[in-house]
């Protein structure tokens, strides 16, 4: 199931497919580990429309919802077993 990161439910692991943010943010996110092929999880959503708390590998960081909406992820549907972490980069 393809959706954007802002739509992803909390505690549901998904794999990053494409990062459509500005070049600068894309680079910053890559440094934090969020790049195509990596697994990402939304840990919680900030109150009052605040940012998302994301986890990629061992790194946790926050990202606003508007930017998270520009990141496409693939979430395994309920029937299929969750993708294994640490998969090969395409």
């Amino acid at each position, binding site marked *: 199931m393809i959706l954007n990161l802002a739509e992803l439910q909390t505690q549901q692991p998904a794999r990053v497919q494409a990062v459509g943010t500005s070049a600068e943010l894309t*680079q910053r996110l*890559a440094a934090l580990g969020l790049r195509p092929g990596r697994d990402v999880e939304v840990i919680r959503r900030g109150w009052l429309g605040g940012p998302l708390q994301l986890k990629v590998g061992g790194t946790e960081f926050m990202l606003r919802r508007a930017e998270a909406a520009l990141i496409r992820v693939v979430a395994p549907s309920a029937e299929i077993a969750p993708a294994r972490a640490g998969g090969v980069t395409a």
Partner: protein
Amino acid sequence: MKRVALVGMPNTGKSTLFNRITGGNARVANWPGLTVELASHRVLLGGSMVQLVDLPGIYDLTGGAEDEQVAQRFLADTDLDAVLLVLNATQLDRQLALALQLKSVGARLIVALNMADEAKRGGFDIDTDALSETLGSPVLKISAKYGHGVDGLKALLATSLNQTAARLDFARLRPAEASRDAEAALYAQAVRRPPTLSPGPTQKLDGWLLHPLAGLPLFVLMMALLFQLTYAIGTPLQDGAEALLGSVKDAWLVPLTSGLPEFLSGLIVSGVWDGVTTVLTFAPLIFVFFCLMAVIEDSGYFARAAFMMDGIMARVGLDGRGFVMLMMGFGCNVPALMGTRVIRDHKARLLTMLTIPFSLCSARLQIFLFFAGALFGPRQAPWVLLSLYFASIFIALGTALLFRKYFPSREPFALELPPYRLPVMKHVVFRGWNECKSFLKLATTMIVIGVVAVWLLTNYPNPQHSYAEVIANFFQPLLSPIGIQAELSIALLFGFVAKEVVLGALAVIAGADGAQLATHLAQTLDPVSAYSFMLFALTYVPCVATIAAMKKESKSTGFTAFSVVWSLVLAWMLSFVFYQGARALGF
């Protein structure tokens, strides 16, 4: 000619190091087969000419981004004598995989751990020998920014270029993901950090501290606890310092100066000594406060505060980082203003800078500690202080809200939430002592000058009709509607230079120090006028240093002038509304 490729992830200070080694005048050249230009420079290392090529930043050797592919193609198609790999010493947990990957394709690595100074400050303890052994290559700590270790690195480079150049074997390349386990193992072996809470407790703690409903009350509770502790630990220390300085005055200073002319002994005893010692007794409180602040800062809680506040901060046109800057400003506004450099968008940065002077810094804290102690009971004082911190935050955010439309920004932000870290005693004491030291430095220079000037103003031409009185009378029509009387207005005037001077000036004007000054204030002021004074002192221009920093960081005289005028106007309006409002309500 020998050839060395400079490789590293983006933002590791790779280009800074390149400029350090080459002297800063890089030549940009086209490379066969590559469509983009690469910076390269010839340097003389140990008697042989070496061409150093600065490659685009890469995360791994398999990344798909365009500039990453450029770097990969260069590495795959060029004969190299060595690869100089720059790693960010504070991010080795994410960066060692690149070293392992380069090693797997047979690169002759020389590893520079950049930002070693920052890593040391962050409590990292990096075992370069262990890294060197596993990677099979020399590993050196450097700071490209300050030039530390760069000469050693050049010497090392010079001695390791004695084999014939070779090409990397990309056939043996494995994806970066395959090195993650090895990376984690190597990191665990070579890098020691202050103990962190394991993921379980960190998540549990986050569950509370970032809770939509419980998070904010917990933040308030934490700040309240901070002040209660500061008072509980700091006040006995302050009393001790006061008693000590008082006995020195009675036993030594008064007899020693009794032989001097009255004017001179007056200047020394009730000018310099009373003024400076009143300020000095706050050193223990400042020390305790910043030790406690350091515990909070080191714990990683600030990033949580940024997360929690971002929703609100976004509504006033700022972001979570702005809130962290405000909290940094609690120490001193000047480094907080410099800290806004992390905000790339110019307008967003200006708006953040506009809010920082309202952050209640240590100099103002010392005034408020004194006034709260003098005019409110020991039970109420911590709450008065807490209310001023909240006023500080509200004024800052209100200012942003009011002016946000002139500083539109759409800068995204992604901030790391590190695992909670336990405090390291050494670092905590170091922080407290540093803040204390800079406070004492000011106390011994600026404040001495300030109190001498105040003493002269209040005693010339004679104590009954002094220049101070003339100045106070001049400002009286402006300051009496906000409940600030003549003697306080002189102190405020000097507070324009630095808030550290205010108490010293008051001590000189009142002709009393320490406890005597507190009694004097309690007799001449009531809580409403004292709070109005504190509100004004909180809001108007922090100090000359802040104005200078503002000018330097914004590169705009107009913006700086606007910030100064706005703070003065706002200070008066707030105190006016508070004072007249409280009086109208019968307080």
